[in-house]
């Protein structure tokens, strides 16, 4: 019915729809204004990369050696042997490896400190694109490490975080943000870090709160359906003659953007990203998914080993990190507190954590074996372990740690390239090196998952951005 509803949006909303659909474009414009783009000539002509070991995370598997032909920012051809077209700029990458641009399934780039802390509550339609700090200085650092696509997430303590978006990192030093997908996910939070310390009551209230949101949304939908029915009757009545008793035009219910978003989520149009840490919260998340038919994407959730069977039956995808350990957050000031040199120890920290830190803390009991995930076919994408924008920089290292935990290399590499692209729903453009996809690729000095190997060149849309 959503589509049916869109047809009768008010003029203003129409306008809004258009503008929003043009938003990515308008962002481009904004940036072409803010900071003049480099001459795109590089993107116009052919570029041929040859003699490199290519991890196309797609159909072609690993090509050794392989060739990639780039034209106008897109990949024209990938294969063992391509003869260079006339006037092609040929790069000989003997001894180098090439992987697709790394995709970070979550990050708080482009967000000011405040936005990171307090993204909106009570309004699921809070859109991260409206909170972006276009002048973020940390972006070039991240691109130079080979991360070319990020999901910007409204990270917050709030129960309802709002809408995230998938963004291609700038081809320029600053700015040039291209939005691949907006409304790419609705962030919910079943338990904030603090709640680990508190009673389970608080977790329960949070769960109920989210549930109420969805129940209200259902009510709202019913209301509209009733209205539409009445409306159609009324239209009928208007058509044929007026001898019947008068039928009044039905009252139009109040439109609510937030609820609209929730409805789209319930129609699986928008994936719901739920942050949950403890096993019981994860189960709650799954329950929500069943009740309202949501497309669940679980964030963090350190305790997945304990609920592996449940995860298997429920079709969810997992965003986690091998170095995540939420017990850190129990320390005063959290894991970073010491390094930041900013924390002041508070008494309550001592009270709680005394027992929490002792050996019988859940996540220490369950020894994680990440290869289990592969066994049960749960799509896993890696995310940065914390909310600092810069920690999206070393996605590759997180994959390395995954390898050290016993996951086969190629699987680990998938977890930072193709899988996140699929989970975010942008696999049509990024995440693997195949014909017709964006020419986002990273040239490394050695094996991709040997953390000693360095990033040499980074291409975004066929343009060199970072070069050592």
């Amino acid at each position, binding site marked *: 019915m959503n589509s049916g509803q869109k047809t009768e949006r008010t003029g203003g909303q129409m306008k809004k729809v258009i503008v929003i659909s043009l938003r990515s474009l308008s962002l481009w414009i904004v940036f072409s204004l803010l900071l003049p783009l480099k001459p795109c000539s590089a993107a116009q002509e052919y570029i041929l990369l040859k003699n490199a070991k290519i991890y196309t995370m797609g159909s072609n598997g690993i090509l050794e050696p392989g060739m990639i032909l780039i034209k106008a920012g897109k990949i024209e051809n990938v294969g063992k042997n391509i003869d260079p077209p006339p006037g092609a700029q040929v790069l000989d990458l003997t001894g180098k490896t090439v992987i697709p641009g790394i995709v970070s399934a979550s990050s708080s780039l482009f967000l000011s400190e405040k936005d*990171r*802390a307090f993204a909106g509550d009570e309004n699921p339609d809070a859109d991260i694109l409206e909170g972006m700090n276009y002048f973020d200085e940390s972006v*070039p650092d991240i691109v130079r490490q080979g991360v070319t696509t990020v999901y910007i997430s409204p990270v917050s303590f709030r129960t309802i975080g709002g809408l995230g978006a998938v963004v291609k990192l700038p081809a320029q030093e600053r700015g040039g943000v291209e939005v691949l997908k907006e409304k790419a996910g609705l962030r919910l939070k079943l338990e904030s870090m603090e709640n680990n310390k508190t009673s389970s009551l608080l977790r329960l209230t949070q769960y109920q709160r989210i549930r109420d949101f969805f129940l209200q949304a259902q009510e709202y939908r019913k209301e509209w359906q009733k209205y539409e029915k009445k409306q159609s009757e009324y239209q009928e009545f208007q058509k044929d003659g007026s001898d019947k008793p008068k039928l009044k035009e039905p009252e139009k219910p109040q439109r609510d953007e937030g609820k609209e978003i929730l409805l789209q989520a319930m129609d699986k149009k928008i994936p719901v990203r739920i942050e949950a840490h403890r096993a019981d919260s994860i189960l709650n998340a799954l329950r929500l998914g069943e009740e309202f038919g949501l497309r669940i994407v679980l964030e963090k959730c350190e305790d997945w080993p304990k609920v592996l069977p449940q995860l298997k039956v429920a079709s969810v995808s997992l965003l986690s990190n091998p170095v995540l350990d939420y017990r850190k957050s129990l320390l005063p000031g959290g894991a970073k507190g010491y390094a*930041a040199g*900013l*924390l*002041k120890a508070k008494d309550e920290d001592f009270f709680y954590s005394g027992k929490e830190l002792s050996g019988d803390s859940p996540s220490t009991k369950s020894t994680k074996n990440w290869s289990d995930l592969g066994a049960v076919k749960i799509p896993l994408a890696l995310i940065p372990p914390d909310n*600092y924008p810069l920690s999206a920089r070393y996605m590759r290292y997180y994959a390395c740690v995954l390898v050290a935990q016993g996951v086969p290399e190629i699987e680990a590499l998938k977890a930072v390239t193709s899988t996140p692209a699929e989970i975010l729903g942008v696999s049509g453009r990024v995440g693997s090196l195949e014909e017709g996809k964006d020419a986002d690729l990273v040239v490394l000095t050695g094996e991709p998952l040997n953390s000693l190997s360095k990033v040499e060149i980074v291409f975004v849309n066929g343009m060199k951005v970072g070069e050592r």
Partner: protein
Amino acid sequence: MIKKKSGPLSKMISVGFTIFCFLGPAVLADDLTALRVGTLHRGNGEVLKNALVLIRSGKVEFVGIDSPLPKGTNVLEFKEGVVTPGFIAANAYLSVSAETKIIEMDLREDYTSTKRDKLLALNEGRSEVTPELNALYSIDPRSEDFAKAWRSGVTCLYVAPGNLNVFNGTGTVLKAIGRTPQDMVVKKMVHLKVTFGHEPAYLSRGAGFDPRLYTRRPQNRMGVDFIFRNAFVKLQNKGPIPDSALDAQELILRKVLRSEIPLRIRARSYIDIKAALRAMDEFGFKWILEEGVDAYRYLDELKSRNIPVIYGPVYRPEGRFDFNAESDYYKAQTPLLLAKKGILFAFQNDNKSPISSLRDEAIFAVQLGLDKVTALKALTSYAARILGVEDRLGTIEKGKDGDLLIFNGDPLDPSSRLEKVIIGGKMLDPNR
């Protein structure tokens, strides 16, 4: 980020800072700087036209109309330029530490608790008598406020511990630029800072401190006054024992009584000024009145005992409730009155007006009738005399430090721009 890739060293904070300090025209290669300027205020009232200034190795070598120059010295011409000595902040309120510079704040921490107010952090809550403290080593020269200071012409400042104790500690005179605070020191143990009035008493009511664990004694003016006098009386009761037998605190207090170290009494309302005057008659120390909002009520007393006044801020927003204002009624005209009486005075800022607005304060005083010459003196030579560094700073004379400001017009005209700042012979651009 091509710039970023220019070798890791050049990116280092400290190195970057020092490099930046040494930036300047190539003339600095041999450390002789020669300036030919349109007008030169020496700081003691004298004005030279079309003057020549030579600065060698940080010291002024020659000031005058003309002197033989070594061959190949290229003279920097500032035809329209007006030169004054570097401004001196006789009392500087700064945040002395560069804040939140390590990693972004921890999201789990309370939003405000991570940003620490260094002004408060410079107050030692251990006791209300801590004369032995000095803030020198808790200073971070890379703090933004130092940059603001020299960029607005303040080349030298007086930094002391906070004012929440009765005896807060001794203050230090610093140059506004240096790699470490030790390098910046001009003079240590300049004044011993004492606070009268409600501030020491204010915090004892548990604001900031946890009353259960820790309370402080003074509850009101009387308490403050008692603690102040008690410290001296105790010392006097010890009798004429040698300095070696005294501990750090008592030693400093004795020096005060010997008037080797003058007291700097922060007294706003006339009650406190009166108390200070009485104490002076009793113990016979030298002292300086800081911030004296009510100074205009005691002009004669101040004059007869020749007590210098550090007054400020001159400008206080009208009709606004000012928490620090203990005095019910202040006279923006006070500088003028002090000048008329011939009392030595200087300007200061406070936690409401940034250090960069020191010049604006002086301009405001001028607009209220203070003559420019005195105003400029108050910014330079008077301040130097109050701080006891007149042998090095305050005026442009042979043998003194080469701290100069070059304006493109009248230094006390807001529409004239500070073109160059010279500190210790190094020329810096304040507008970058």
